[in-house]
């Protein structure tokens, strides 16, 4: 059993004891512990159940690469699943729960899957998909959903209680990794004067060097690390951040850093995570290396760990993994673990080295301690269970027979080390296969390229495949200097610190243990712990024809879990290469994609949540609306009142009241959100003739015209009233959502097609408050205001006729009044300066009292226009509708040679008489048609579905007519007046509606023209 040692533990503070809970049980650890080291110290070797087979699992690694020890942390609005125990720093009150078991970690009913493992092989899901659909839906899916998976999802109703932020940073040289290579590279780069940022994922600096030993400049690595850190901290051009992981490298030197500010100290205040958005000229990846597991049967039993991790637990946290340990290796490095364990008083019962010739000086040192070293030997099997009890040892070069059984409670394994090439590879850096270390390393000839075609990533140290301390430090010093020079700083030569470490003998590539393991062993030899993928699964995939490593990954799920195969990828593709009789470099790797390690969604969102998720645009009268019952509706970034609710009124009642009152008395609409674009210049008329389907150049000064805009594809994209202001100025109204888009659209054509035309476009939408004064009493209220002010604009029928506009004063306000109507009533849209909007609104409300004034919202606006058969962009149009579909041929100029969309509207499909066309729809029983409902016709289509002959585009209850009204697009619609067609609803009912003229109210248009 694992326990705390009396000595060792360079990172823990034994004077600060900390209480935490695991599965509800209180345990004790020390400040400086990770959750993983603290659990081991409490004898908790088993930390979870596996994804698919529910096998007992313990911690394998000591860092970000950990696949097994995933925890559910916290509760309520701070609950988070799938957090690695190895990267979770212990704090007082931490609450952790293990995952994926029922009813408990110790006794898990679904461990039956382990017995069924031969039915749950590679491609299990895909194979099941072939079976009859009901079986999938009612049997497999519910079972799989219950049994497979990681932690439970957080409660969807709860909001994350923490805050997050983004931070922008520009660096000449970004160094990712604060191990000795990263610090050396930073020092070399900073000496040139470059602005250097160094990111370290852990809370401590120096990486593995203090654990692995050796000397730097004649001292223990820790002394050099402290000294170098002090030097770097003293430099103005260097920024150091710990607990900040280099998460991804992107195009042209963009990088993300993921800083965990309060995970280790909740309650400290401030943001929990900070996402660093970094632009760097050059990036040094000093990301170290990750140890590979060995593939032997039972290599997932709790107590089997990576040799380097086991060393970490002893040296860093003073935890011993067991009492009797077997070390299995194919290289010299694992002997360091044997030495550390021996020094800590742990019995190393065997070192099993696959190499017939054994290792070098480290092996000799181990032998000198009296530890038994066996060469050419392997682990045949670790006995299944909740912890290691028995280890069977056999010859490496065999099938696993003639076993010697050894009693042990932990196993340290090392299959060699792989450089962490992820960040090098994120943006296209290529790899080469290194025979010596049996790993992929960065190809210096093929780095990721920046905007000038220059390489912008420089790997350093172990991440570059340089493992000895001396070579690693020299490589890092060169990398740092090279990066600074590439970033435009003078070449400097900083002498690399002198590293010394024990020379190591050549390792041996071992991908399966023993080399010819029989199928029973291979079925228990894990490659990917987190996704439960075994050697036999990859071999099966190869037999079933999967040759591409990318396909094999998806078929077997190898490397697809939250750890993205940090431990499993090389072993997996080596097995695949062997199965395919190919070389490893030929098989290649899967694509490395950011993030390197899972980052929180909160960090990605940053501050963009809740009220500041996006800007809210408010009209000058926003506050008045809010005080007077506005039921807000988002329209793009604007907020508009849907309706103004009075006490005791629901939405429906409020809308009916507003509709009736506007038709009978007087309504006010805040129309300020409508887009207003000034188009000005000698060629403005010519330009607008191209933009609009109508002729705008001939519009007389003082007049208005309703215009349509189409895309080059012919489809209707916006509409609005255009007013001719003077000889070379037009004012174009757009839809509320269209102002910015149409402004951009005009700019695009002016800048990229007709750049010699003299036209200027300005978006003045927010410069004006615009109020629609609508209803039979509209003129009366304006005349009253003018009378009160002692005169003003003549708003009579004769002086300001329908579809004209005038500048002048109304009620003492400088105003521009447009006689235009989107309701069919007598209507003036009056624009005043935005700053006067509220005062003008107040004046209208006050003067309008005797005329029955009421404000109305967007729903009433919609109903009023629908009663008149006016189309609405986004309702009657959806990007596939042309003006001809909507009976708007009158707005298409026949005189103009060209306008945007004209050529497209001549294409065969656009002139097809079978296109659906706009009609009015009246339900037979007066009810309201469901929005978006489709009308069905005779017969079925090629897929056996009923033929569709039309759809509802707008549908409302008309308070004016006391019945449901709708508009829709129907095949041959205008020729089918009076016909009744059927609309099956999603509620199971079938609605019957008669095809009618789309103008339901005041067909002659008399009311708006009084």
């Amino acid at each position: 059993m694992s326990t705390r040692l009396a000595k060792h533990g360079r990172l823990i503070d034994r004077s600060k004891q900390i209480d935490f809970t695991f599965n509800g049980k209180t345990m004790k650890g020390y400040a400086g512990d990770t959750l993983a080291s603290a659990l081991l110290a409490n004898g908790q070797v088993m930390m979870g159940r596996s994804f698919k087979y529910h096998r007992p699992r313990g911690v394998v690694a000591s860092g970000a690469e950990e696949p097994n020890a995933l925890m559910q942390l916290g509760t309520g609005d701070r609950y988070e699943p799938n957090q690695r125990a190895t990267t979770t720093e212990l704090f007082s009150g931490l609450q952790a729960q293990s995952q994926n078991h029922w009813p408990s970690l110790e006794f898990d009913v679904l461990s039956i899957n382990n017995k069924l493992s031969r039915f749950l092989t590679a491609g299990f899901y895909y194979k099941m998909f072939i079976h009859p659909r009901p079986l999938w839906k009612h049997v497999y899916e519910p079972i799989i959903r219950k049994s497979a998976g990681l932690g439970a999802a957080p409660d969807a109703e709860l909001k994350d209680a923490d805050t997050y932020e983004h931070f922008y940073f520009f660096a000449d040289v970004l160094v990712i990794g604060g191990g000795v290579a990263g610090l050396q590279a930073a020092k070399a780069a900073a000496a040139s004067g470059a602005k250097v940022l160094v990111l370290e994922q852990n809370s401590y600096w120096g990486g593995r060097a203090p654990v692995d030993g050796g000397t730097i400049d004649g001292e223990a690595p820790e002394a050099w690390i402290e000294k170098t850190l002090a030097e770097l901290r003293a430099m103005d051009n260097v920024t150091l951040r710990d607990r900040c992981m280099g998460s991804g490298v992107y195009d042209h030197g963009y990088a993300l850093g993921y800083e965990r500010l309060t995970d280790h100290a909740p309650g400290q205040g401030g943001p929990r995570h900070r996402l660093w958005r970094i632009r760097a000229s050059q990036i040094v990846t000093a990301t170290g290396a990750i140890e590979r597991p060995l593939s032997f049967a039972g290599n997932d039993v709790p107590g089997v760990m990576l040799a380097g991790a086991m060393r970490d637990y002893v040296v860093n946290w003073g935890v011993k993994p067991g009492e009797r340990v077997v070390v299995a290796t194919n290289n010299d490095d694992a002997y360091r673990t044997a030495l550390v364990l021996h020094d800590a008083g742990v019995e190393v019962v065997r070192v099993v080295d696959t190499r017939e010739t054994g290792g070098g000086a480290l092996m000799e040192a181990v032998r000198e301690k009296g530890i038994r070293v066996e060469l050419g030997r392997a682990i045949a099997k670790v006995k299944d269970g909740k912890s290691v009890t028995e280890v069977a040892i056999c010859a490496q070069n065999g099938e696993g027979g003639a076993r010697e059984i050894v009693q042990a409670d932990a196993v340290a394994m090392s299959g060699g080390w792989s450089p962490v090439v992820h960040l090098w590879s994120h943006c296209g850096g290529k790899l080469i296969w290194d025979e010596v270390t049996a790993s992929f390393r960065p190809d210096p000839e093929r780095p990721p390229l920046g905007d000038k075609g220059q390489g912008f990533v420089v790997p350093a140290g172990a991440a570059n495949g340089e493992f000895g301390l001396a070579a690693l430090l020299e490589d890092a010093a060169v990398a740092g200097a090279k990066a600074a020079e590439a970033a435009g700083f003078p070449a400097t030569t900083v002498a690399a610190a002198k590293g010394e470490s024990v020379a190591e003998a050549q390792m041996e590539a071992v991908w399966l243990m023993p080399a010819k393991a029989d199928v029973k062993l291979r079925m228990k030899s894990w490659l990917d712990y987190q996704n439960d993928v075994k050697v036999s699964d990859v071999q099966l995939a190869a037999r079933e024809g999967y040759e591409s490593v990318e396909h094999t990954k998806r078929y077997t799920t190898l490397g697809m879990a939250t750890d993205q195969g940090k431990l499993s990828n090389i072993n997996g593709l080596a097995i695949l290469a062997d199965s395919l009789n190919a070389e490893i470099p030929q098989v290649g790797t899967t694509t490395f994609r950011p993030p390197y390690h899972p980052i929180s969604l909160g960090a990605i969102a940053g501050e963009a949540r809740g009220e500041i998720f996006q800007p809210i645009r408010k009209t000058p009268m926003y506050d008045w609306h809010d005080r007077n019952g506005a039921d807000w509706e988002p329209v793009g970034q604007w907020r508009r009142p849907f309706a103004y609710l009075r006490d005791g009124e629901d939405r429906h009642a409020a809308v009916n009241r507003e509709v009736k009152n506007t038709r009978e008395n007087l309504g006010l609409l805040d129309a300020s959100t409508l887009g207003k674009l000034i188009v000005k210049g000698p060629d403005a008329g010519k330009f607008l003739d191209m933009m609009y389907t109508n002729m705008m150049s001939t519009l007389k000064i003082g007049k208005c015209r309703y215009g349509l805009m189409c895309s080059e594809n012919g489809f209707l994209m916006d509409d609005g009233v255009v007013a001719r202001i003077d000889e070379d100025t037009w004012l174009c109204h757009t839809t509320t959502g269209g102002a910015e888009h149409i402004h951009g659209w005009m700019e695009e054509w002016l800048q990229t097609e007709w750049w010699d035309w003299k036209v200027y476009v300005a978006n003045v939408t927010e410069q004006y408050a615009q109020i629609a004064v609508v209803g039979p009493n509209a003129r009366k209220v304006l005349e009253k205001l003018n009378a009160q002010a002692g005169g003003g604009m003549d708003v009579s029928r004769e002086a300001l006729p329908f579809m004209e506009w005038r500048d002048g004063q109304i009620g003492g306000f400088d105003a521009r009044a447009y006689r235009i109507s989107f309701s069919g009533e007598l209507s003036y849209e009056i624009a005043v300066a935005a700053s006067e909007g509220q005062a003008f609104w107040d004046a209208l409300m006050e003067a309008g009292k005797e005329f029955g004034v009421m404000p109305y919202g967007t729903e009433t606006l919609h109903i009023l226009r629908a009663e008149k058969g006016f189309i609405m962009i986004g309702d009657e149009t959806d990007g596939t509708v042309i003006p001809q579909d909507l009976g708007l041929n009158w707005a298409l100029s026949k005189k103009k040679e060209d306008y945007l969309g004209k050529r497209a509207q001549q294409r065969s499909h656009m002139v097809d008489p079978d296109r659906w066309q706009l009609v009015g729809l009246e339900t037979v029983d007066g009810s309201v048609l469901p929005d978006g409902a489709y009308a069905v016709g005779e017969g079925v289509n090629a897929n056996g579905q009923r033929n569709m002959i039309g759809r509802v585009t707008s549908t409302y209850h008309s308070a004016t007519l006391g019945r449901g009204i709708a508009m829709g697009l129907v095949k041959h619609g205008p020729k089918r007046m009076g016909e009744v067609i059927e609309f099956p609803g999603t509620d199971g009912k079938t609605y019957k509606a008669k095809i009618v003229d789309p103008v339901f109210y005041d067909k002659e248009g008399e009311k708006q023209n009084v």
Partner: protein
Amino acid sequence: MLILECPYCGVKAEETELAAGGEAHLKRYGPGSSDDEFHDYLFMRENPKGVHFERWRHANGCGKWFHAARCTMTLEVFGTYPAQTTEPPQEICDKITAKRPGWSWREFSDGRKSSAA
């Protein structure tokens, strides 16, 4: 997250400031053009692995449209230039030739516009 230098305001703009506008140097076909000409103008686009000419707008900056010549494979940018031109300037073509001898794109190649293709 590409960086493109806006040829108008001189800002080294990053992708979040820019809006992509598709292929550059399209010739507009309107009424009077054949169905094939119009179809090609509207829908047919280059999709090269290598040298490409694109339209970009410095949307969250000075608002100007400009052109960029870049490599879609390596993301190298050969140059940016104003949008008020129907073909890439000689200087840009020369820059591409220096880095990608023998390049061609639509009717343009190796520094010169080829004679009527």
